C-alpha cells in the first residue's frame, strides 16, 4: 500500500513539474533528466539486474540517433521512422557482441564493449555516407507534427515521460517474470544458477538485447530533441560513462535508481556548464570521476540502497541482526 502512495506522489510530481517550474531552462532540464533516466534505466537492465557492466552502451545510443537522423537526412522521412530501424540494428549488434563475450567473466565483457564502441566511433567518423566527423542533421523547419521538432521543451518532456514509464514498466515486469528470477540467481552465483538449470548465457543475452533496444530509443529521442547527431554526441565514450554513472549513483539493480541518479547528475552538469562556461566541461567530468570513485569505495549499491537496507528489518521482524 505504502509503495503505491509513493508511486503516485512521484508520478504527480513528474506530471506537474514543467507546469509549476515553467521557465524554458527548467523545462529543458526536466526533459534532459527524463532522457538520461531512460538511457540509464535501459543500462540498468543489463548492468544492474544482470550484473554485466557494459561500458560501451553508447553504441546502441548511436544506433538510435543515427537511424533517426538518417531516416530524415537520407530518405526524407520523419525521424520517427528511424526508431524501429535503430532498434533492429541495436538488438542485432547486441547479439553479435553478446554471444561471444557474455560467456566470459565480467571484466572481459566490459573491455569488449569499450572496444566495440570505439571501433564504431572511428568507423562512423570515417564514413562519408554517415556525415563523417560532421554528422547528420534533422529537419531544421518541421514539416508536420510527425517530425517531432519543437521549439519548446514541453512536448519533449511529456514524450520522454511516457517512454520512461514504458521502460520502467517493462523492467518491472521483467524482474517479476521467470527471466527476472533467473537473472537474480545468475547475479548471485552463475555456477549455482547453471547447475540448477537456469540458462545463464541465454538469459544474459536477452537482458542485453532488451537493454540495447531501449538505449537505442533514448538515442533516437536525444537526436530528435537536439536536431543533429555527430560522432562525439552519438558515439562518444563519455555518453556511456554518463549513463553508467547515473545508474550506479542512484542504485544499479534498483528500479528507480537510474531516475534518482539522473535527477542529481543532469542538473549538476547543466548548472556547472552554465556557470563555468567552456572550462566547465573539464571540471564536470573531474566531479563525475570523483563521485564514481566515492560511490565505488563507500556505497557500491548506490544512494537508494541506503533506504532499502534500512527498510529490511521492518519487513522481516524475525531477523534480529543483519550479517
Amino acid at each position, binding site marked *: 500500500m505504502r509503495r503505491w502512495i509513493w508511486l503516485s506522489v512521484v508520478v504527480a510530481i513528474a506530471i506537474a513539474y514543467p507546469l509549476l517550474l515553467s521557465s524554458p531552462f527548467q523545462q529543458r532540464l526536466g526533459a534532459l533528466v527524463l532522457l538520461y533516466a531512460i538511457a540509464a534505466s535501459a543500462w540498468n537492465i543489463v548492468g544492474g539486474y544482470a550484473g554485466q557492466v557494459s561500458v560501451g552502451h553508447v553504441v546502441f545510443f548511436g544506433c538510435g540517433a543515427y537511424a533517426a537522423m538518417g531516416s530524415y537526412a537520407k530518405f526524407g522521412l520523419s525521424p520517427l521512422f528511424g526508431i524501429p530501424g535503430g532498434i533492429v540494428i541495436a538488438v542485432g549488434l547486441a547479439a553479435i557482441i553478446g554471444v561471444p563475450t557474455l560467456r566470459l567473466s565480467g571484466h*572481459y565483457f566490459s573491455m569488449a564493449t569499450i572496444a566495440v564502441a570505439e571501433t564504431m566511433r572511428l568507423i562512423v567518423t570515417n564514413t562519408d555516407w554517415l556525415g563523417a566527423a560532421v554528422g547528420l542533421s534533422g529537419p531544421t523547419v518541421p514539416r508536420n507534427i510527425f517530425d517531432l521538432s519543437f521549439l519548446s521543451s514541453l512536448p519533449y518532456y511529456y514524450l520522454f515521460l511516457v517512454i520512461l514509464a514504458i521502460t520502467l514498466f517493462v523492467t518491472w515486469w521483467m524482474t517479476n517474470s521467470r527471466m527476472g528470477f533467473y537473472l537474480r540467481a545468475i547475479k548471485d552465483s552463475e555456477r549455482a544458477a547453471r547447475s540448477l538449470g537456469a540458462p545463464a548465457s541465454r538469459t544474459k543475452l536477452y537482458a542485453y538485447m532488451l537493454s540495447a533496444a531501449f538505449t537505442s530509443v533514448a538515442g533516437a529521442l536525444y537526436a530528435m530533441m537536439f536536431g543533429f547527431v555527430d560522432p562525439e554526441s552519438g558515439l562518444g565514450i563519455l555518453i556511456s*560513462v554518463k549513463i553508467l554513472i547515473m545508474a550506479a549513483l542512484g542504485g544499479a539493480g534498483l528500479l528507480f535508481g537510474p531516475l534518482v541518479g539522473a535527477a542529481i547528475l543532469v542538473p549538476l552538469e547543466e548548472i556547472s556548464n552554465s556557470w563555468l562556461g567552456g572550462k566547465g566541461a573539464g571540471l564536470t567530468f573531474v566531479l563525475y570521476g570523483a563521485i564514481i570513485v566515492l560511490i565505488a569505495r563507500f556505497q557500491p549499491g548506490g544512494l537508494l540502497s541506503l533506504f532499502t537496507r534500512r527498510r529490511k528489518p521492518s519487513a522481516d521482524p524475525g531477523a534480529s541482526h543483519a550479517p
Partner: protein
Amino acid sequence: MSFVLVQVIVGGLLLGAVYALFSSGLTLVWGMMNIVNFAHGDFVMLGMYVAYVVYTLMGGGPILGAPLATLVLATVGVVVYFALIRDIMKGPMLAQILGTFGLALLLRYSVFWWFGANFLSMPQNIVGGTYAFAGLRIEASRLLAGVVALLVTLGLHLLLTRTSLGSKMLAVAEDQTAAQLMGIRPDTMQAIAWAIAAGATGLAGALIANFFYIVPTVGETLGIVAFVTVSLGGFGSVPGALVAGLLIGVIESLSGYLIGAIYKDIVVYVLFLLFLWFRPQGLMGKM
C-alpha cells in the same frame, strides 16, 4: 622486401617494446589481484605530462624526466592502492569497474582542466636527431624508448621469477591466507605490485613523451592498447605481454602504412575483439 617496409617494421618493434612495458604493469596487477585497472592508460598519460613538466621546469629531456616520472607514478600507484583498490577488491565487480573507471576520468579531466585540450609536444632536447644504420633511419628518442623499455620489461620478468620478492608476490597471488601464514604480508606485496605497475607506466609515458602527441585523452587509446596486449599475451604473463606488445606495435605500424593512418586503431581493436571471442586465454596464457 622494400626498405620502407623494413623501416616501418623496425619502428613498430620499437614502439611495441614500450607497449609491452606499460602492459606488463596491467598484466601484473590483473594476474595477482584479479582486478582490471581501467585507469592504466591514464597512468601512462600522467607519465607523459610529468616528463613534459619536468622538461619545461628543469630541462634535461628523458634522462631526467624518465626516472622522475617513474617515481611519481609509483607513488601514485601506492596511494591509489591504499586509498581505493584495497577496499574495492573485496567488493562487487560493479564497484571494481566503477572505481578504476572513475579514477580514469578523475585523472584525465584534471589534466584536461589544468593543461587544456591542446596537443603539446616536447621541445627539442638532448635526445634528438636520427641515426642511420645500413640505410635505415631511426630517431634517437624512439631508439632510446624501445631499448630501455625492452630491457626494463625483461628486468621485470627476472624480478618476478628469480628473486625472493617475486616469489613472495607469486605466493600472495596463489593463496593470500597461505602466504600470510608463511609470514608474507599480502597488503605490502600488493602495494609493491601497484608501485611497480604504475612505475612502469610512468617510465613508458616519459619515454614516448618525446615523440608522441601529449594530450589528456591519449590515455583512452593507450588503455585499450594495454588491454589488447594483455589479452593477446595472456593475463598475468609478462613474457606474453612482451611478445604481444611487439606484435601489436608491428601490426599497428604496418596497417598504418599499408591501409592508412586512420585505420590503424580500428585494426588493433578488431584484433582484440577477435581474440576475446576465439581465444580468450591469449597466445601464451592459460584460463
